[in-house]
């Protein structure tokens, strides 16, 4: 601590050039520290607050993601560990692997069979519930109920419903003279069974999103249209649908990403092999089978990364589409 004495030469540091402050030096020091911390607070604290997510994401998201690339370039088994670098051998094998293409075909097939009816039905439900009907809150809550159940529970119950000899669905079909269907045996029949499980759980979720978007459309537009003599159908197609476009694209993107990673429902419906000939083995199931059943981590990682890239491309396509529509 330096004391300023009359007649003494002024200290050569910056402190002395600033205006004299009231109070002693200890206070100035404290104030400087205070300013420092306030600045730090303003600049650093926001990052600290969001840090937990990013640190966890880096450890449990980003690191595995990048490490998977590393593993996919090696011969790597669960038992033997890393058995050497092999460049892109796994990726060249992948291109020629019929099982991989089959799994991709199944993933997209189930996507189409599940998502198209799902979004149409969700739209229909949302439109119905946006009208004035009795107990509307009850029905709106009801939409979300399937979403609350666990996927595994849904899949177990539906797998029993779709049983060949003792399933309820075949029993009911029997009344209409339809022979029992072995749902797991056929490609299309297994897709339908899985699509029903997915739709049961997700239709209400999407309907609620549509419903929220619909309630944001100004009433005046409908009133004006009604005065001009537009029918309800016409109002729906020419007002509701165009106004919902961003929301529809959002649901399509989210469903695409979700469906590309389809796993739980088909696994519980059959097992990771996806039926006797892989009729409903999705790409995620193939990854799991290669990595955790055959213990071939290298190849499993290569498939995982390819799937990741496919999802990125699809998302980019969706984003491009969105900006085009917005710009138009």
């Amino acid at each position, binding site marked *: 601590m330096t004391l300023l004495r009359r007649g003494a030469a002024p200290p050569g540091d910056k402190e002395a050039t600033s205006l004299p402050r009231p109070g002693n030096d200890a206070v100035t020091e404290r104030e400087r520290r205070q300013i420092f911390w306030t600045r730090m607070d303003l600049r650093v604290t926001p990052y*600290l607050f969001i840090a937990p997510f990013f640190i966890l994401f880096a450890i449990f998201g980003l690191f595995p993601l990048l490490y998977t690339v590393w593993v996919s370039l090696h011969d790597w088994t669960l*038992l033997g560990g890393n058995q050497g670098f092999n460049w892109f051998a796994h990726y060249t094998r992948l291109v020629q692997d019929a099982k991989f293409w089959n799994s991709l075909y199944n993933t997209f097939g189930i996507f189409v069979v599940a998502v198209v009816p799902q979004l149409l039905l969700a739209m229909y439900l949302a439109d119905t519930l946006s009208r004035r009907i009795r107990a509307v809150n009850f029905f709106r809550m009801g939409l979300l109920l399937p979403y609350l159940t666990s996927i595994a529970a849904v899949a177990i119950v539906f797998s029993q419903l779709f049983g060949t*000899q*003792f399933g309820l669905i075949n029993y009911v079909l029997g009344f209409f003279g339809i022979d029992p269907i072995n749902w797991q*045996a056929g490609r299309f029949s297994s897709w339908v069974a899985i699509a029903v499980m997915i739709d049961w759980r997700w239709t209400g979720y999407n309907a609620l999103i549509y419903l929220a978007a619909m309630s944001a459309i100004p009433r005046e537009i409908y009133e004006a249209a009604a005065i001009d003599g537009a029918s309800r159908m016409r109002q729906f197609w020419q007002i509701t649908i165009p106004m919902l476009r961003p929301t529809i694209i959002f649901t399509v993107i989210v469903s695409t990403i979700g469906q590309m990673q389809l796993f739980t429902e088909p696994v519980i419906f059959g097992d990771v092999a996806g039926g006797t*000939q892989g009729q409903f083995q999705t790409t995620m199931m193939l990854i799991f089978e290669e990595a*955790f059943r055959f213990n071939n981590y290298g190849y499993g990682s290569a498939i995982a990364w390819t799937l990741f890239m496919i999802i990125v491309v699809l998302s980019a396509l969706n984003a491009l589409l969105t900006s085009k529509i917005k710009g138009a």
Partner: protein
Amino acid sequence: MRTFHRRYWKTTAAMLGVVALLGTSACSGDDEADSDGKITLTVDTFGVFGYDELFEQYMEENPNIIIKENNVTDLHADYVPQLQQNIAAGSGAGDIVAIEEGIVQQFFLSQGDNFVDLAEYGAEELKDNFLPWKWEMGKGPNGEILGLGTDIGGMSMCYNKTLFEDAGLPTDREEVSASWETWDDFIEVGKKFQEAQTGASFISTTVPYFSAVNAQGGTHTFFDEDNNLVAETNPVILESWDLMVRMVEEGLSANLPMWSDEWNAGIQNNVFATLPCPAWMLGHIENTAGESGRDQWDVASVPGNGGNWGGSWLAVTTQSKHPEEAAKLAMFLTSPEGQISAWNAANTLPSSPKALDDPAVTEFTRDYFNEAPVGKIYAETAKELKPVYYGIHHAQVSEEFRKALEAMEQGQLSPEEAWQQAIDGAKRASGQ
């Protein structure tokens, strides 16, 4: 000053939050060093082991031990992959794990260093407690004692007495046994059964018969003893496959995937008439069919020559924090007395010669199965059993064959196509 302190406190809290979050995720594993000095031992099992009473007894005699059992129903689909990951990861497996016959080489030979050599805890002198082959198969690559035998499968053929009566076939277990000395005879009986049009099928699916016939074949199945995939050329597999093709072509199968809900419903609803029954299968039928199935089923001898399907070992993992206590518990469970208790609870056939000679086994008749003298049926063949070498990828390859057999039964593939799919799948699954 106040604001400064408060903000400072906030930053600290945020940082603490990060640390806490990381902390909880990093060490979520349960710490077994309990404060009250009690030791918790976890035992991983699958299917039915019949250990409930033994656990109770052991905990009473050793008040400082708490036993937790992690039981999984499906061996191939759930238990094996889970155990494999836990062993490879170095954590998550129980102190004691059950190792089944089909995966004994996968774990003891190629991953033996993950299991405690029980010789350190005096297991050497237990040798005479086990059938010689059972003792030998529990050893590691350098002769370490890694597993202590629990049960063996043995083999018999369960048949649905009511359905046999409906079809006009003999129902007495001696007569039934005599009617199918060989597997060819078995198919002939099956043809007669189908002709009677009872509405039921003779077999549920070919998969358990494939396992049974393979196990009777002698020395090895899909892999030779150097772990080369020989499924394509091994006469045991070829003959057994042909037999399955004939069963399918004669229309004997109900096409119910084994262990599925449909298959279990098939047991409850008397949809199929026979099922290869290693000793442990009796428990499954009884639990599945329940009271309504009482006296429906009976037990005859199996076509061909005996054979063994299933049976397990108990091993102590090196992950265990209490290997000594775990080893003691494993020895208790696999002792002749322990095996007799498990036999009484679940009819898991003992691997101990002493237990096999015990009147509790030899004179036992199973009430649920028309008072069948199951003890005698199994114990008679048990001592002459020859072990089969399954190899380290057996579990994966048998899954491939299961899928191919089911595809053939359901008419999705011709026998030739199914065989090709099985072989291609086997090569892929074993990496050969």
